[in-house]
């Protein structure tokens, strides 16, 4: 027997395939499947939410505390004015049976408002203090009520639960590693696009209601322009915004969309603004609401 070693065989134990080819197949496939799953689940949730009788949602949130109510007299007066505005605008919208819009006012400087399960809408003092007219405030209010009318909070809940379930399975399979994190990022970006679509829809409904209430949509344009100038004042004016990373459509586009909507529906884009009711106007001078 002659003993000899030959050189190790090449290309048998380790493949010659280009690594990027494998990467492209795997990453492309995983992203495509995940985006398709998130889109399907989101569409499903969006389709199902308005069909779900509101009383189930009410039962679900029945245990939750009502939005924070201000404790002092001025705050309570401001809240009452907000609630009156909400009731007036809600009367112009097709709300699900049994849903009553309840407004909350929080004494925080954040410029924001949101709508959530159970017909609750919460305004932050920081937002009210930045608005010049009732028209602008009514645009925000109508936008939030539109979310409620369209059952967006319920759709978001169902979507969040379903997508979370899928992601928990996927990321468990993809290990604690970066692949799981990257897929999670893909899913949340896909969700954001649904979010933006909902915001556009709420904007459209708000424009309709504001036009019916005030006879023009000047307040809505004021509002979106105020958002845009706030963004610029924060020093973000220089950096271009990337829309697909945002929860809302770009503010400059929202103002333009309002003008386009007005032109398309023959509604004036400008007109006399109604002043804010007294207690809400008082919030503007930095007068804080005691919670």
């Amino acid at each position: 027997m002659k003993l000899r070693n030959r050189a190790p065989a090449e290309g048998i134990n380790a493949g010659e395939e280009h690594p990027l080819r494998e990467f492209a197949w795997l990453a492309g496939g995983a992203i495509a499947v995940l985006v398709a799953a998130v889109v399907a689940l989101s569409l499903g949730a969006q389709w199902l939410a308005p069909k779900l009788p509101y009383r189930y949602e009410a039962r679900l949130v029945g245990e939750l505390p009502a939005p924070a109510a201000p404790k002092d007299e001025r705050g309570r007066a401001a809240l009452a004015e907000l609630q009156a505005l909400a009731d007036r605008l809600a009367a112009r919208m097709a709300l699900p049976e049994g849903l009553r819009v309840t407004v909350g006012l929080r004494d925080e400087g954040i410029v924001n408002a949101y709508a959530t399960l159970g017909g609750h809408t919460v305004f932050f003092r920081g937002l009210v203090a930045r608005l010049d007219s009732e028209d602008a405030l009514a645009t925000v209010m109508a936008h939030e009520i539109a979310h409620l009318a369209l059952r967006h909070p319920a759709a978001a809940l169902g979507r969040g639960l379903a997508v979370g379930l899928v992601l928990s399975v996927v990321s468990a399979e993809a290990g604690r590693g970066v692949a799981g994190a990257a897929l999670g990022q893909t899913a949340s970006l896909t969700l954001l696009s649904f979010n933006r679509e909902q915001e556009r829809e709420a904007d459209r409904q708000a424009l309709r209601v504001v036009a019916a209430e005030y006879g023009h949509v000047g307040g809505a344009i004021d509002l979106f322009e105020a958002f845009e100038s706030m963004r610029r004042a924060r020093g973000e004016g220089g950096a271009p915004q990337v829309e697909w990373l945002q929860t809302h459509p770009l503010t400059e586009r929202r103002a333009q969309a309002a003008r386009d909507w007005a032109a398309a529906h023959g509604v004036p884009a400008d007109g006399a603004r109604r002043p804010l009711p007294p207690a809400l106007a008082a919030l503007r001078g930095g007068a804080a609401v005691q919670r």
Partner: protein
Amino acid sequence: MGALLEIGLFVTLLALGYGVGRVLERRHYASIRRRERELADVLAFTMRFPPASTRAQDAFLVCGSVVVSSDYFKTFVAGLRGLVGGRFRGYESLLERARREALLRLKQDALARGARLVVCVRFESTSITSGRTPSIEVVAYGTALVPRPR
């Protein structure tokens, strides 16, 4: 901008892992092939006993061990591969390099101590994954034989 930064960082790490990993792998293969030619006359076999023709005067244990680590790119692709299964070529070449390197080190050990023949060569590997990027140790060991002078 936070999300954009996160995506940018991720893509950078992925590209870095791929680019650097690819260059290092190519260099390592070149070095392995060169040393395999240099050590071609040190023979290594898996049989348990020396061939009958061998008249050894000395025998001792020789061993070569190597630790290799995956890179960001390979680990990412491995995570995706874990979803669907199948042959993962990124780790195949990583482990092939580790085995060949371990065998080379074993031969180097044998040669340094005057042996030209190693029998009963065995391979073992231990995963030492602690962080996100897995590493593995591959050990080759065997019995080196020094021939009796004629």
